[in-house]
């Protein structure tokens, strides 16, 4: 059963074969502190890319710059040929509120801390997101919410508030909420880090189904098993730059850089 | 406008004398209320005797729940019926000390509860005695946590000294009221008096806010 909406999106006419998401020489500094120093990355449609690397290496900032939760310092992000970062005279400027909303509705994001709306039930979270972001009608939004909750195995908890759900359950609802907007790509920011180890598999298996259904995904993670089995490619981000990238299996089993090897050994011993 | 300024300046000596007395009332009632509140708060929080704890909680709730003005009247007009006659000044001090002790003890209880249980457990694990634990570990941390609230509270005590007008004690509001009843320029004189109160209170709360940012570990 597919997790994805099967109706073709209107953008399907864009150049076929080209990468869906392109990150081009992206840099980000907070004051004197440089977090990203020229990151280049591309994701093809349906590709799943794992983003690994030490904490503080810029993984989270990279994801947040892609959907413009953070304004990049320089560089460009292109979704299906459309540039997302506004520039004026070569400098990055804050985009208009309207442009921001448009960008973010096309790029889903799943947070480490779930960030479900605390004052709404699981179902209300998903209904509200569709109605507020897309203007979906009430009945349609509710029906889609039910379907999505069913698909992430949370149909029985539709009426529960986030505080009544475990971390794994909250994260599955959050994934459903993100899917409800039919994003072109979903960014996962360490989706299982805040979840008890024994609850992680329920989230990871939802993500695996999503990957198999053809969703384009960029996943920052410490789950090397997930990276190896599910992602097509793995990118090692360290000190604000991509040190190494390649097919997941070969990168994770035979890394070429010492730094990557060190990191993988530390994780394995962790 | 120039009249207003000239009048204000001419009232200032009387008002400042009143302000001085308000500060004095604040100082004396805190001097008595703070230690009383500290002890009350600590004993209530740490005692193992349930009846004592309930009794103290009742006293604290009474001190916090009764309007200070009613307590003041009760002491000033009520106690003489049982042959205890206090001057206006000492009636005010007694009433405020009672109210203050209740509030201070609440602040102190909160601070003691704010100290992580691990601090106490560490002392127990190290075999440090109860008195030493209180003096060297609990009290310094509790004081550090509660200092900003206590400074903030001092500002509230200062404000509440204005109640003393009800028993004709010559503090700031009383001075302003007297000027008003002679000149009938109530609005102007209360604006000047209000400004004097506000300057002291705003300065104290800014100071408390600054302390709060400084005392975080």
């Amino acid at each position, binding site marked *: 059963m597919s997790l994805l909406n099967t109706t073709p999106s209107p953008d399907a006419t864009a150049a076929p074969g080209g990468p869906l998401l392109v990150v081009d020489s992206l840099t980000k500094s907070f004051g004197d502190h440089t977090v990203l120093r020229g990151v280049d990355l591309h994701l093809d449609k349906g590709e799943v890319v794992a983003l690994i690397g030490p904490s503080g290496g810029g993984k989270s900032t990279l994801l947040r710059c892609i959907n413009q939760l953070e304004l990049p310092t320089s560089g460009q992000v292109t979704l299906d040929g459309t540039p997302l970062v506004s520039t004026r005279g070569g400098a990055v400027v804050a985009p208009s*509120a309207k442009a921001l909303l448009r960008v973010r509705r096309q790029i889903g994001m799943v947070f480490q*801390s779930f960030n479900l*709306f*605390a004052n709404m039930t699981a179902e209300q979270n998903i209904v509200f997101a569709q109605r507020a972001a897309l203007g979906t009608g009430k009945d349609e939004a509710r029906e889609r919410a039910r379907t999505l909750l069913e698909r992430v195995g949370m149909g029985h908890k539709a009426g529960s508030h986030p505080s009544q759900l475990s971390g794994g359950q909250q994260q599955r609802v959050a994934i459903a909420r993100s899917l409800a907007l039919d994003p072109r790509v979903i960014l996962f920011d360490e989706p299982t880090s805040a979840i008890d180890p024994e609850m992680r598999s329920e989230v990871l298996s939802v993500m695996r189904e999503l990957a198999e259904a053809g969703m384009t995904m960029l996943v920052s993670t410490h789950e090397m098993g997930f990276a190896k089995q599910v992602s097509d490619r793995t990118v090692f981000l360290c000190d604000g730059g991509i040190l190494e990238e390649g097919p997941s299996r070969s990168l994770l089993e035979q890394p070429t850089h010492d730094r990557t090897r060190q990191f993988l050994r530390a994780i394995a011993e962790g | 406008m120039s009249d207003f300024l000239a009048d204000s300046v001419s009232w200032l000596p009387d008002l400042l004398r009143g302000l001085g007395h308000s500060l004095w009332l604040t100082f004396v009632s805190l001097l008595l209320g703070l230690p009383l509140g500290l002890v009350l708060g600590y004993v209530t929080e740490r005692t193992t005797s349930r009846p004592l704890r309930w009794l103290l909680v009742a006293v604290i709730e009474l001190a916090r729940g009764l309007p200070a*003005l009613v307590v003041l009247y009760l002491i000033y007009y009520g106690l003489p019926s049982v042959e205890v006659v206090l001057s206006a000044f000492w009636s005010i001090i007694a009433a405020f000390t009672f109210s203050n002790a209740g509030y201070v003890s609440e602040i102190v209880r909160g601070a003691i509860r704010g100290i992580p249980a691990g601090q106490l457990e560490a002392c127990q694990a190290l075999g440090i005695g109860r008195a030493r634990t209180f003096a060297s570990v609990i009290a310094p941390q509790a004081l550090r946590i509660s200092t900003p609230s206590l400074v903030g509270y001092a500002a509230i005590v200062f404000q509440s000294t204005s*109640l003393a007008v009800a028993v004709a004690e010559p503090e700031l509001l009383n001075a302003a009221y007297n000027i008003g009843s002679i000149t009938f320029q109530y*609005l102007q004189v*209360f604006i000047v008096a209000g400004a004097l109160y506000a300057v002291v209170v705003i300065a104290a709360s800014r100071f408390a806010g600054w302390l709060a940012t400084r005392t975080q570990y």
Partner: protein
Amino acid sequence: MDFSLLPAALWLTAQITILSALIGMAAGVLVVLARRSRVAPLRWLAIAWTDVVRGVPPLVWLMLVFLGVGVFTPLGAAVIVFGLVASAYCAEIYRSGLEGVAKGQYEALDALGIPTRTGRLRVVVPQAAVISAPAVVSYVIGMVKDTSLASVIGVAELTFVANRAANRTGDGITPFVTVGVLYLLLSLVLALVGRAAAARAESGWAA
């Protein structure tokens, strides 16, 4: 003392408390909106308002408005003063309630591309309201005591009636103990109502 005067006095105390609490809670919304406005002068005005209103003792405000402005009845002056004072305190409570809403909630709204106004209205404000509710309740309970100050400008509420009885009969204990008990009872009733309301508001979701 003449106990038959007490019900009317108690009702007056309750009226002042409730009316000024309602004024304060509503006006506090305006003050906090100004405080968080994008227009700097509005923010300054809101800061000045909260500082000055809270910096001057309520009794001074009462005298200033009743004797100084001189156009209000004692009851009117009391309700206005306590309402305005409450607006400053409520605004501060609302402000910390808004600050208490987790940053992740804003991020989720942004990430989903939900328009700012909709997000504030449907997600931020409801959560801030529940966070603020207990503080508002305890502030309103504290207001019961403050209303005793209205006796000084001649509002015939509990303290005023007790004071007059004490002066007439020479018995300074019975009247003040009696009204003291009534104040405690009134606070208790408000606390119970407030707790029930708060429990209802956060039923289900508050952590």
